[in-house]
Protein backbone atom coordinates (compact mmCIF):
# COMPACT_ATOMS: atom_id res chain seq x y z
CA UNK A 1 0.00 0.00 0.00
CA UNK A 2 1.33 3.43 -0.93
CA UNK A 3 0.08 6.92 -0.34
CA UNK A 4 -0.81 9.19 -3.22
CA UNK A 5 -1.54 12.88 -3.43
CA UNK A 6 -4.44 13.19 -5.85
CA UNK A 7 -5.77 16.51 -7.09
CA UNK A 8 -9.02 17.01 -8.93
CA UNK A 9 -10.35 19.97 -10.89
CA UNK A 10 -14.11 20.41 -10.86
CA UNK A 11 -15.61 23.03 -13.14
CA UNK A 12 -19.02 24.10 -14.44
CA UNK A 13 -19.88 22.20 -17.61
CA UNK A 14 -19.49 23.96 -20.92
CA UNK A 15 -22.70 25.68 -21.89
CA UNK A 16 -23.81 26.14 -18.28
CA UNK A 17 -23.99 29.75 -17.18
CA UNK A 18 -21.22 30.47 -14.68
CA UNK A 19 -22.12 33.86 -13.18
CA UNK A 20 -19.12 33.72 -10.86
CA UNK A 21 -16.74 33.32 -13.79
CA UNK A 22 -18.52 36.14 -15.60
CA UNK A 23 -18.16 38.47 -12.63
CA UNK A 24 -14.46 37.64 -12.33
CA UNK A 25 -13.97 38.27 -16.07
CA UNK A 26 -15.66 41.67 -15.74
CA UNK A 27 -13.49 42.55 -12.75
CA UNK A 28 -10.36 41.58 -14.69
CA UNK A 29 -11.49 43.72 -17.61
CA UNK A 30 -11.97 46.68 -15.30
CA UNK A 31 -8.38 46.12 -14.10
CA UNK A 32 -7.33 46.46 -17.73
CA UNK A 33 -6.64 42.79 -18.33
CA UNK A 34 -8.51 43.25 -21.56
CA UNK A 35 -7.00 40.09 -23.08
CA UNK A 36 -9.20 37.89 -20.86
CA UNK A 37 -11.81 36.17 -23.03
CA UNK A 38 -13.51 33.68 -20.74
CA UNK A 39 -13.30 32.76 -17.07
CA UNK A 40 -14.85 29.75 -15.39
CA UNK A 41 -14.57 29.28 -11.65
CA UNK A 42 -14.57 25.78 -10.21
CA UNK A 43 -13.14 23.87 -7.27
CA UNK A 44 -9.79 22.24 -6.71
CA UNK A 45 -9.72 19.27 -4.34
CA UNK A 46 -6.49 17.74 -3.06
CA UNK A 47 -6.44 14.55 -1.03
CA UNK A 48 -4.09 11.94 0.30
CA UNK A 49 -5.26 8.48 -0.70
CA UNK A 50 -3.90 5.08 0.28
CA UNK A 51 -3.93 2.63 -2.62
CA UNK A 52 -1.98 -0.28 -4.08
CA UNK A 53 -0.89 1.72 -7.12
CA UNK A 54 -1.53 4.89 -9.12
CA UNK A 55 -4.20 3.33 -11.28
CA UNK A 56 -6.31 2.15 -8.36
CA UNK A 57 -5.85 5.50 -6.58
CA UNK A 58 -7.19 7.39 -9.58
CA UNK A 59 -9.97 4.84 -10.09
CA UNK A 60 -11.15 5.34 -6.50
CA UNK A 61 -10.99 9.12 -6.83
CA UNK A 62 -13.05 8.88 -10.00
CA UNK A 63 -15.70 6.97 -8.02
CA UNK A 64 -15.58 9.69 -5.34
CA UNK A 65 -16.15 12.33 -8.00
CA UNK A 66 -19.09 10.46 -9.53
CA UNK A 67 -20.71 9.92 -6.16
CA UNK A 68 -20.02 13.09 -4.21
CA UNK A 69 -17.34 15.53 -5.32
CA UNK A 70 -18.92 16.60 -8.61
CA UNK A 71 -22.53 16.88 -9.72
CA UNK A 72 -22.63 15.36 -13.21
CA UNK A 73 -25.74 17.39 -14.04
CA UNK A 74 -23.80 20.64 -14.03
CA UNK A 75 -20.12 19.91 -13.47
CA UNK A 76 -17.20 18.18 -15.17
CA UNK A 77 -14.17 16.90 -13.33
CA UNK A 78 -10.66 16.05 -14.29
CA UNK A 79 -7.98 14.33 -12.24
CA UNK A 80 -5.17 16.85 -12.45
CA UNK A 81 -2.40 14.80 -10.85
CA UNK A 82 -1.64 11.59 -8.96
CA UNK A 83 1.71 11.68 -7.18
CA UNK A 84 3.15 9.11 -4.86
CA UNK A 85 4.14 10.72 -1.54
Amino acid at each position, binding site marked *: MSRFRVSVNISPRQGILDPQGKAVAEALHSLEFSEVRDVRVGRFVVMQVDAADRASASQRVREMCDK*LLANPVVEDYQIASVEET
Partner: protein
Amino acid sequence: MKFGIVTFPGSNCDYDAHHAVTDALGAEAVYLWHKSHDLEGVDVVILPGGFSYGDYLRAGAIARFSPIMREIVAHARRGGPVIGICNGFQIACEAGLLPGALMRNAGLQFVSAPVRLRVENPDTMFTNRYATGDVLRLPVAHGEGRYTADAETVERLEGEGLVVFRYVNAAGEVDPSANPNGSVNAIAGIVSAEGNVLGIMPHPERAVDPLLGSADGLGIFQSMMAHVSA
Protein backbone atom coordinates in the same frame (compact mmCIF):
# COMPACT_ATOMS: atom_id res chain seq x y z
CA MET B 1 -52.20 12.78 9.01
CA LYS B 2 -48.62 13.00 10.20
CA PHE B 3 -45.79 15.09 8.79
CA GLY B 4 -42.12 14.30 9.41
CA ILE B 5 -39.76 17.25 9.29
CA VAL B 6 -36.10 16.38 8.90
CA THR B 7 -33.52 18.26 10.94
CA PHE B 8 -30.08 18.21 9.35
CA PRO B 9 -27.16 20.04 10.97
CA GLY B 10 -27.73 23.53 9.59
CA SER B 11 -31.47 23.25 8.91
CA ASN B 12 -33.13 26.48 9.97
CA CYS B 13 -36.67 26.28 8.60
CA ASP B 14 -37.65 23.10 10.43
CA TYR B 15 -39.47 25.06 13.16
CA ASP B 16 -41.30 27.18 10.56
CA ALA B 17 -42.41 24.01 8.79
CA HIS B 18 -43.55 22.53 12.11
CA HIS B 19 -45.54 25.68 12.87
CA ALA B 20 -47.11 25.61 9.41
CA VAL B 21 -48.34 22.02 9.59
CA THR B 22 -49.36 21.97 13.26
CA ASP B 23 -50.60 25.46 14.19
CA ALA B 24 -51.75 26.63 10.76
CA LEU B 25 -52.89 23.35 9.23
CA GLY B 26 -53.82 21.43 12.37
CA ALA B 27 -51.96 18.24 11.49
CA GLU B 28 -49.56 16.20 13.57
CA ALA B 29 -45.82 16.62 13.04
CA VAL B 30 -42.60 15.11 14.33
CA TYR B 31 -38.99 16.11 13.83
CA LEU B 32 -36.87 13.43 12.22
CA TRP B 33 -33.20 13.57 13.21
CA HIS B 34 -30.78 13.22 10.30
CA LYS B 35 -28.98 10.32 12.00
CA SER B 36 -32.15 8.33 12.53
CA HIS B 37 -33.24 5.45 10.33
CA ASP B 38 -36.87 5.61 11.49
CA LEU B 39 -39.54 7.59 9.65
CA GLU B 40 -41.87 7.07 12.65
CA GLY B 41 -44.84 6.23 10.47
CA VAL B 42 -45.16 9.67 8.89
CA ASP B 43 -47.33 10.15 5.81
CA VAL B 44 -45.41 13.11 4.37
CA VAL B 45 -41.73 14.02 4.66
CA ILE B 46 -40.62 17.65 4.60
CA LEU B 47 -37.00 18.44 3.74
CA PRO B 48 -36.82 21.96 5.16
CA GLY B 49 -34.77 24.98 4.22
CA GLY B 50 -31.48 25.99 5.74
CA PHE B 51 -27.79 25.42 5.11
CA SER B 52 -27.36 21.72 5.78
CA TYR B 53 -23.71 20.87 6.41
CA GLY B 54 -22.87 24.52 5.79
CA ASP B 55 -23.67 24.05 2.09
CA TYR B 56 -20.11 22.70 1.84
CA LEU B 57 -19.09 21.30 -1.54
CA ARG B 58 -22.51 22.05 -3.08
CA ALA B 59 -25.82 22.88 -1.40
CA GLY B 60 -27.41 19.57 -0.39
CA ALA B 61 -24.50 17.41 -1.56
CA ILE B 62 -23.56 16.10 1.86
CA ALA B 63 -27.05 16.04 3.40
CA ARG B 64 -28.21 13.59 0.76
CA PHE B 65 -25.93 10.95 2.31
CA SER B 66 -27.36 11.42 5.83
CA PRO B 67 -28.63 8.16 7.37
CA ILE B 68 -32.29 9.30 7.27
CA MET B 69 -32.06 9.94 3.52
CA ARG B 70 -31.93 6.22 2.76
CA GLU B 71 -35.35 5.84 4.37
CA ILE B 72 -36.68 8.95 2.66
CA VAL B 73 -35.57 7.76 -0.77
CA ALA B 74 -37.28 4.39 -0.08
CA HIS B 75 -40.43 6.24 1.09
CA ALA B 76 -40.42 8.28 -2.14
CA ARG B 77 -39.83 5.16 -4.27
CA ARG B 78 -42.94 3.64 -2.65
CA GLY B 79 -44.89 6.72 -3.75
CA GLY B 80 -44.77 8.47 -0.39
CA PRO B 81 -45.08 12.25 -0.57
CA VAL B 82 -41.93 14.32 -0.06
CA ILE B 83 -41.72 18.09 -0.18
CA GLY B 84 -38.32 19.75 -0.46
CA ILE B 85 -38.31 23.46 0.29
CA CYS B 86 -35.32 25.63 -0.64
CA ASN B 87 -32.32 23.68 0.73
CA GLY B 88 -34.70 20.70 0.77
CA PHE B 89 -35.20 21.14 -2.98
CA GLN B 90 -31.41 21.17 -3.42
CA ILE B 91 -31.13 17.99 -1.33
CA ALA B 92 -33.91 16.28 -3.32
CA CYS B 93 -32.07 17.05 -6.57
CA GLU B 94 -28.75 15.84 -5.20
CA ALA B 95 -30.45 12.64 -4.00
CA GLY B 96 -31.88 12.01 -7.45
CA LEU B 97 -35.50 12.36 -6.29
CA LEU B 98 -35.90 15.24 -8.75
CA PRO B 99 -34.03 15.96 -11.99
CA GLY B 100 -31.71 18.92 -12.48
CA ALA B 101 -29.72 21.04 -10.06
CA LEU B 102 -29.89 24.39 -8.27
CA MET B 103 -26.96 26.62 -9.06
CA ARG B 104 -25.60 29.98 -7.93
CA ASN B 105 -28.12 32.77 -8.58
CA ALA B 106 -27.45 34.45 -11.92
CA GLY B 107 -27.11 37.81 -10.14
CA LEU B 108 -24.58 36.26 -7.72
CA GLN B 109 -26.38 37.76 -4.74
CA PHE B 110 -28.31 36.04 -2.02
CA VAL B 111 -31.93 37.09 -2.56
CA SER B 112 -34.26 37.47 0.40
CA ALA B 113 -37.52 38.97 -0.83
CA PRO B 114 -41.17 38.25 -1.47
CA VAL B 115 -41.79 36.94 -4.99
CA ARG B 116 -44.81 35.97 -7.05
CA LEU B 117 -45.39 32.45 -8.30
CA ARG B 118 -47.92 31.30 -10.79
CA VAL B 119 -49.58 27.93 -10.35
CA GLU B 120 -48.94 26.02 -13.59
CA ASN B 121 -50.48 22.69 -12.67
CA PRO B 122 -53.20 22.29 -10.04
CA ASP B 123 -53.56 18.55 -10.68
CA THR B 124 -50.91 17.42 -8.21
CA MET B 125 -51.12 16.30 -4.60
CA PHE B 126 -49.37 19.55 -3.63
CA THR B 127 -51.46 22.02 -5.61
CA ASN B 128 -55.03 20.67 -5.72
CA ARG B 129 -56.28 23.60 -3.62
CA TYR B 130 -55.17 26.09 -6.25
CA ALA B 131 -56.34 26.82 -9.80
CA THR B 132 -54.21 27.21 -12.92
CA GLY B 133 -52.94 30.76 -13.13
CA ASP B 134 -53.36 31.57 -9.44
CA VAL B 135 -50.60 33.95 -8.40
CA LEU B 136 -49.14 33.34 -4.94
CA ARG B 137 -46.99 35.67 -2.90
CA LEU B 138 -44.22 33.74 -1.11
CA PRO B 139 -40.78 34.69 0.23
CA VAL B 140 -37.51 33.44 -1.24
CA ALA B 141 -34.23 33.39 0.68
CA HIS B 142 -31.45 31.69 -1.22
CA GLY B 143 -28.11 32.16 -2.93
CA GLU B 144 -28.29 29.01 -5.04
CA GLY B 145 -31.73 28.77 -6.54
CA ARG B 146 -31.13 28.90 -10.28
CA TYR B 147 -32.87 25.79 -11.55
CA THR B 148 -30.78 24.16 -14.26
CA ALA B 149 -31.24 21.00 -16.27
CA ASP B 150 -30.28 19.84 -19.74
CA ALA B 151 -32.56 20.91 -22.59
CA GLU B 152 -34.08 17.45 -22.92
CA THR B 153 -35.04 17.32 -19.23
CA VAL B 154 -36.54 20.81 -19.33
CA GLU B 155 -38.58 19.86 -22.38
CA ARG B 156 -39.85 16.73 -20.63
CA LEU B 157 -40.74 18.68 -17.46
CA GLU B 158 -42.66 21.23 -19.51
CA GLY B 159 -44.31 18.64 -21.75
CA GLU B 160 -45.51 16.48 -18.88
CA GLY B 161 -46.82 19.33 -16.73
CA LEU B 162 -44.14 18.75 -14.09
CA VAL B 163 -43.35 22.45 -13.76
CA VAL B 164 -45.85 23.43 -11.09
CA PHE B 165 -44.72 26.93 -10.12
CA ARG B 166 -43.12 29.70 -12.16
CA TYR B 167 -41.81 33.12 -11.12
CA VAL B 168 -44.03 35.87 -12.55
CA ASN B 169 -44.60 39.60 -12.26
CA ALA B 170 -47.59 41.40 -10.73
CA ALA B 171 -49.55 40.83 -13.93
CA GLY B 172 -48.94 37.09 -13.63
CA GLU B 173 -46.57 37.02 -16.58
CA VAL B 174 -43.11 35.56 -16.93
CA ASP B 175 -40.69 38.48 -16.93
CA PRO B 176 -36.89 38.35 -16.47
CA SER B 177 -37.08 41.08 -13.83
CA ALA B 178 -39.45 38.89 -11.77
CA ASN B 179 -37.11 35.90 -11.87
CA PRO B 180 -34.99 36.21 -8.71
CA ASN B 181 -32.24 33.76 -9.66
CA GLY B 182 -32.21 33.23 -13.43
CA SER B 183 -33.88 29.80 -13.33
CA VAL B 184 -34.43 28.28 -16.76
CA ASN B 185 -37.99 29.04 -17.94
CA ALA B 186 -38.50 30.88 -14.62
CA ILE B 187 -39.02 27.52 -12.91
CA ALA B 188 -39.70 27.89 -9.18
CA GLY B 189 -41.09 24.43 -8.41
CA ILE B 190 -41.30 21.01 -10.02
CA VAL B 191 -42.77 17.61 -9.23
CA SER B 192 -41.26 14.22 -9.99
CA ALA B 193 -42.55 12.20 -12.94
CA GLU B 194 -44.54 10.05 -10.46
CA GLY B 195 -45.96 13.23 -8.93
CA ASN B 196 -45.10 12.46 -5.31
CA VAL B 197 -42.00 14.63 -4.81
CA LEU B 198 -42.25 18.43 -4.90
CA GLY B 199 -39.25 20.73 -4.97
CA ILE B 200 -39.88 24.44 -4.46
CA MET B 201 -37.35 27.23 -3.88
CA PRO B 202 -39.71 29.79 -2.26
CA HIS B 203 -40.95 29.18 1.27
CA PRO B 204 -44.64 28.24 1.58
CA GLU B 205 -44.12 27.46 5.29
CA ARG B 206 -43.27 31.12 5.91
CA ALA B 207 -46.52 32.28 4.33
CA VAL B 208 -49.28 30.55 6.27
CA ASP B 209 -50.87 33.47 8.11
CA PRO B 210 -51.82 37.01 7.01
CA LEU B 211 -49.78 38.18 10.00
CA LEU B 212 -46.68 36.94 8.14
CA GLY B 213 -47.57 39.03 5.10
CA SER B 214 -49.18 36.20 3.17
CA ALA B 215 -51.14 33.04 3.77
CA ASP B 216 -50.74 31.89 0.17
CA GLY B 217 -48.44 29.00 1.08
CA LEU B 218 -50.98 27.25 3.25
CA GLY B 219 -52.68 25.81 0.18
CA ILE B 220 -49.73 23.49 -0.45
CA PHE B 221 -50.13 21.90 2.98
CA GLN B 222 -53.94 21.83 2.66
CA SER B 223 -53.55 20.14 -0.73
CA MET B 224 -51.44 17.37 0.82
CA MET B 225 -53.95 17.00 3.64
CA ALA B 226 -56.77 16.66 1.12
CA HIS B 227 -54.75 14.15 -0.87
CA VAL B 228 -53.68 11.93 2.03
CA SER B 229 -57.14 12.00 3.64
CA ALA B 230 -58.81 11.13 0.34
